[in-house]
C-alpha cells in the first residue's frame, strides 16, 4: 500500500480561540518567567507553564477584563502548588530551589542585590511570593490582590510586613556596613504578626 502524505486541516480559530490566542501571545513569556522563578528547572517551568495555559483555556470565560495578566499569574500559582504537591516531592523541590537560588545569588554581580536575594530566601513562602510579585513581576497592590485572591488592603498590610522582615533579614545577614533599605526595628513590645 503506497504511503500517503497526511493532510492536516486546521480550522481558523473562533472568537473564543482568538481571545485565547491574544492572551497567550501577550502573556506567555511573563507567565513562563513567573513560573521559572519559582521552579527548580526550566523543564519544570515548561511543564507548569503548559498546565497553566491549559487551565486558562478551560477557564477563559472567567478571565477578568483588564486584569488578565494577574489572573494568569494566579492560575499559574495554583498549578505550581499542584506541581509541588506531595511532601517528598516538595522537599526535593525546596532543596533544588534552595540550591539553585544559591547558584543564582552567586551569579548576581551586585553585592547588595546578592545580599537581598539571600535574605529573601530566609523569609517564609508568603513573604517571598509577595515580594517577588512586587519586585520581579512588577505588580501593584491591586494586581497582587488578584493573584493571591485577597483584598488590596490585605496585600498592603502583608507587603509592608514582608518588606520589614526582608529589611531585618538583610540587616542580620550583614553587608559589610552597607545596609540596603533597612527599616527601623519595631518598637519593643510591638509585633507585626
Amino acid at each position: 500500500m503506497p504511503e500517503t502524505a497526511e493532510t492536516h486541516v486546521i480550522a481558523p480559530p473562533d472568537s473564543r480561540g482568538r481571545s485565547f490566542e491574544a492572551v497567550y501571545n501577550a502573556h506567555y513569556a511573563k507567565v513562563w518567567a513567573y513560573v521559572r522563578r519559582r521552579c527548580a528547572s526550566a523543564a519544570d517551568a515548561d511543564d507548569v507553564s503548559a498546565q497553566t495555559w491549559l487551565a486558562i483555556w478551560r477557564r477563559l470565560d472567567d478571565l477578568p477584563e483588564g486584569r488578565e495578566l494577574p489572573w494568569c499569574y494566579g492560575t499559574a500559582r495554583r498549578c505550581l502548588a499542584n506541581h509541588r504537591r506531595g511532601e517528598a516531592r516538595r522537599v526535593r523541590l525546596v532543596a533544588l530551589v534552595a540550591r539553585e537560588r544559591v547558584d543564582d545569588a552567586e551569579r548576581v554581580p551586585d553585592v547588595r542585590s546578592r545580599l537581598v536575594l539571600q535574605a529573601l530566601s530566609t523569609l517564609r513562602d508568603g513573604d517571598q511570593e509577595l515580594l517577588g510579585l512586587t519586585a520581579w513581576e512588577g505588580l501593584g497592590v491591586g494586581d497582587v490582590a488578584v493573584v493571591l485572591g485577597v483584598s488590596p488592603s490585605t496585600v498592603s498590610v502583608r507587603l509592608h510586613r514582608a518588606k520589614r522582615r526582608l529589611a531585618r533579614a538583610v540587616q542580620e545577614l550583614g553587608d559589610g556596613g552597607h545596609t540596603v533599605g533597612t527599616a527601623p526595628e519595631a518598637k519593643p513590645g510591638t509585633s507585626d504578626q
Partner: protein
Amino acid sequence: MIERDQELIAALTAADPIDLDAVPAPDRALLEEIMMTDPANSPRSTPVETPRRRTPVVAAAALMLVTGVGVGALALNDGSKAADPAATTARALTRAPIDPAPRTGLDPGGISTSCMVWDVTSLDLTAYAFDGTVTEIDNGWVTFEVGEWFKGPSGDLVTLNAEALTARDGGIATSVDELLITDVGQRLLVSGSDGFAGVCNQTQAYTAAEADAWRAQLST
C-alpha cells in the same frame, strides 16, 4: 522609610534570578495543541479535588472553645465552589473520612471573639489532630496533606473548613489568634471537630517541639 522600601525593592528587582533574555517566545505548537482540546469536556478538577456540598448551613457552633462570640453577620451561604481548573496532575492520595463543614458565611468584619486559655490537654476534646501541610486554600476551605495523624482517622488528604483562619478581607483570624493560613506549603499542627480546623491555638504553626507535645498528649 518609603525611600528605603523603594531601595529595597529595587535591589530585589536587580537580583531577579532569571535571565529575561532567555525567556522563550510563545510556543505555537503548544497553543495549537491546547486549542484543539474541548474546554467543555476537559476535566476541570483534580483526582484529589475537595468534596463540596451545596447545603446552606449555619455553623456557628464550629468555633469550638471560643467564648464571647459576637456574630455580626451569620448569613446563609451557598457552600458550593468551582472546581480548581488548574489541577491536572496529582498522585493518587487517599482521603481521610472527614467531610469539610459547609461555609458559614461569617462576615469577616462581623465577629469578635476571645479565646479560652489553650493547653495541650485541650486536644482531648477534639475529634482529630494532625501534622499537615497546606495543599489548597479555596474560599475558606483548606486541604491538608497529612504527615502524621495524632488522633483521628487515616488518610493522606483532608479538607476542612478554615474560614476563621484564612485571610479573606483581612481575615477574622487577626482578631481571634495569631495564625493565618495564607499559603500553600504552610506546615501546621491542626486539630478540630465537625469538619473545621479549630481556632484559638487548635491550629498552630508547626514546630517539632509542639508536635512532640501533641503526640505525647494523644498517645497516652
